[in-house]
């Protein structure tokens, strides 16, 4: 027996040797490489963790938040938005109007493209014309249909090549005329904040029909932002380097890296120093890890505010009785969701605006958790409780999935039969659009303009009007809100709108989690923000 062992030994030995040799190679420098954010060359590198993969970075045709952050770093817009929901200027130097109908905007005189050419009024007109061109693969400018010369879908009418309401005054000045007087914030958000300016001199000769396939769209070589793109690996990382000629000041860091990883790895990488912070909008740390992150040495956490919220849609064709919808609202134990599931790191929301939004209606009636009242309402409405309710939930957000389980229990407690069905996101959207559900849960981001915040949810034909809600009074209020240019009067309109919605209840807003923002002590300047996080990236610095 012993003999066998001796004979087989060299084989195992060889195997072990090979394995070990692979390991030992790195023992020598393993102490420094992984933990240090700065490479051997002494460059200042900041890494930010996110969860959502980056889809297309085509500046004229993208929707998801992560991709927009990448685009924002490369192509400056006129404005950014900060956490106070105020517009802060980037390319815009001046923005004025005497009548809220003709707006004159001046571009920063020093703002140049990376090839040295100035960012001009021509570029802005080119960007808008391109997006509004029906031949271009872009979803147009639906939210800019207020501008003269665009149709209701925000496209150029047939035969038109340029937006008539846009006038170039000089290289750095232009004016925009709207169909009616509007609240300047509508323009600041939809033209200023949401549109990234692309370089006319680089793209003007490309066939509009082929523009989205042009290599420039995924690997832009001429940009205007504080950083330039080094490498985009859509589902693993994006690497940027400083643009030394940036008009708001040369960045102090050499490189910025956005790393994409499962949320479970965010905490590990904060701990090892492989990332210095997370992006709270697209890199949310699960609430059960908050304590763990707070205890990591060298990481401080900043208390955030509620910037997005979870909702539950009623299918209005199924729950056609408002008192039944109210019964369901009373049945759901929202205080428990907030206190237990979210460990108090959230607030209960009663409207499609959270408490930080300027248009939030303070006086709205808040529905308490009251299962007895719920049972009574159901009894009075003669509701048939034997029919099972299908609660559709998207997979991916653990907290939301757990919330769904609690809500299902709450509903069972008042007599409903509930089935939870989990779907991936595309399937859920399809179910929502076809109103093929009874109750459906989803998260919504907060937006600055009150129209954009909720008309897609409640207006007839709105993209996310999964409830199939149609109230002519609401549709009218949205139209009024869009055309009213006095913010004080708009506030009254949206207060009324929230009151009606709170009675009609096409959706229940459940809770809004406070964003959680950990950042490494190594950062001298720069921290995670729910909005406008990279606005001052050129001032960021790391030890």
């Amino acid at each position, binding site marked *: 027996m012993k003999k*066998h062992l001796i004979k087989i030994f060299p*084989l195992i030995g060889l195997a072990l040797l090979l394995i070990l040799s692979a390991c030992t190679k790195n023992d020598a420098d393993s102490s420094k*490489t992984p933990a240090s954010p700065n490479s051997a060359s002494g460059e200042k590198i900041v890494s930010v963790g996110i969860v959502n993969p980056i889809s297309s970075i085509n500046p004229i045709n993208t929707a998801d938040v992560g991709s927009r952050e990448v685009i924002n770093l490369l192509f400056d817009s006129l404005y950014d938005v900060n956490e106070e929901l105020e517009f802060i200027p980037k390319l815009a130097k001046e923005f004025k109007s005497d009548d809220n109908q003709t707006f004159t905007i001046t571009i920063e005189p020093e703002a140049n493209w990376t090839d040295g050419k100035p960012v001009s009024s021509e570029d802005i007109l080119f960007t808008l014309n391109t997006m509004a061109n029906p031949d271009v*693969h872009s979803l147009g400018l639906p939210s800019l249909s207020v501008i003269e010369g665009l149709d209701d879908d925000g496209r150029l009418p047939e035969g038109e090549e340029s937006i008539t309401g846009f006038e170039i005054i000089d290289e750095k000045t232009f004016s925009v005329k709207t169909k009616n007087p509007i609240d300047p914030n509508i323009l600041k958000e939809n033209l200023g904040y949401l549109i990234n300016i692309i370089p006319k001199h680089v793209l003007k000769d490309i066939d509009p029909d082929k523009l989205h396939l042009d290599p420039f769209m*995924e690997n832009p070589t001429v940009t205007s932002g504080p950083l330039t793109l080094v490498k985009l690996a859509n589902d*693993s990382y994006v690497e940027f380097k400083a643009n030394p000629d940036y008009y708001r000041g040369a960045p102090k860091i050499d490189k910025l*890296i956005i790393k994409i990883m499962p949320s479970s790895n965010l905490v590990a990488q904060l701990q090892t120093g492989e990332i210095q912070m997370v992006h709270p909008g697209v890199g949310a740390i699960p609430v059960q890890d908050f304590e763990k992150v707070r205890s990591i040495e060298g990481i401080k956490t900043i208390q955030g505010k509620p910037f997005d919220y979870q909702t539950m849609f009623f299918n209005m064709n199924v729950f056609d009785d408002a008192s039944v919808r109210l019964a369901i609202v009373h049945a759901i134990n929202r205080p428990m969701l907030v206190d237990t599931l979210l460990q108090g790191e959230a607030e209960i929301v009663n409207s499609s605006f959270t408490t930080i939004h300027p248009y939030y209606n303070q006086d709205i009636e808040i529905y308490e958790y009251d299962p007895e009242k719920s049972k009574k309402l159901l009894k009075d409405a003669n509701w048939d409780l034997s029919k099972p309710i299908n609660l559709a939930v998207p997979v991916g957000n653990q907290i939301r999935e757990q919330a769904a389980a609690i809500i299902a229990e709450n509903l069972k407690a008042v007599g409903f039969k509930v089935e939870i069905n989990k779907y991936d996101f*595309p399937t859920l*959207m399809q179910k929502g659009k076809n109103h093929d559900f009874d109750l459906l849960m989803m998260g919504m981001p907060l937006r600055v303009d009150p129209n954009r915040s909720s008309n897609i949810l409640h207006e007839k034909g709105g993209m996310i009007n999964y409830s199939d809600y149609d109230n002519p009074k609401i549709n009218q209020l949205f139209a009024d809100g869009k055309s009213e240019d006095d913010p004080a009067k708009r506030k009254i309109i949206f207060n009324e709108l929230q009151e009606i919605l709170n009675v009609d209840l096409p959706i229940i807003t459940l809770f809004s989690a406070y964003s959680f923002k950990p950042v490494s002590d190594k950062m001298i300047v720069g921290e995670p923000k729910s909005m406008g996080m990279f606005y001052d990236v050129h001032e960021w610095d790391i030890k």
Partner: protein
Amino acid sequence: MASYIMRRLLIAIPVLIGVTIFNFIIINMAPGNPVEMFVNPDATPAQIELEKERMGLNDPMVIQYFRWMNSLLHGDLGYSYSTYEPVTQVLLERMGPTLLLMGLALFFGLLIAIPIGILSATKQYSKLDYATTGFSFLGISIPHFFLGLGAIYIFSVQLQLLPTGGMMTLGSGGGFVDRVEHLILPVFVLATGIAGKKIRYVRASMLDVLGQDYLRTARAKGLREFVVTNKHALKNALIPIITVIGLEIPLLIGGAVITEQVFQWPGMGLLTIQSIMSRDYPTLMAINLLTAVIVLVANFATDILYSVADPRIKNN
């Protein structure tokens, strides 16, 4: 032999066509569609319809399929619906990292499994045998995500020896040492799983052979035990093992979905998941086609290898 190869190739064509039809139907039947995944929520339904029309998504499925097949025959796999890059380019970018990761994992997995399996069989029912059997069951049953996260916790977070993921330290350009460091944990996780499975096969297969008469003859001839085990016995024991290894080859291209996610390895597995989530039809079709081709090639190569390992098997 030549006619055998020819015949196999000819059979492969209808099989591949069948696979593409089947995949096309399944992919298109999945609820949701790519336009809604990249659409801006402010878009009006009319604009979404227009975009769908432009992408040809409103055409009957048969027409869409033939359009896809037609460009395939012209060597064009289309462009990705989520990143607008040519699919060929996307796949090529992913293939390298996946080949490297899976190749090393398979190599180390076998390097562990074959000697240990042989040893385990020659020492049947010894403590060593029980230990290896225990290890191999552990390797088979531990989910990759758990082993991966555990390895990250121990080696990256606690000991700070290895990076938690990625292919290299970003921003540094990534030297050889750096890349090896990034490979260790994912290769370890995958190799553990592969070794666990293969040890069982090698052991069982060796046990079958070890009891046979010709080995007694070999020993009677006065051959050394080492030669008996590792030459005479192993050669016959390898035949079923080759089949099993052949079955693993498609993984080399397909990648390891879970492990690649845990370690943020930019390979095919990660791409597959992302393409499904964004309903990126052209990329999904290309991945499926590629996988089908690899499966066919691997099966074919396995059959050829049989005859090398055992000249009694004639390919006819």
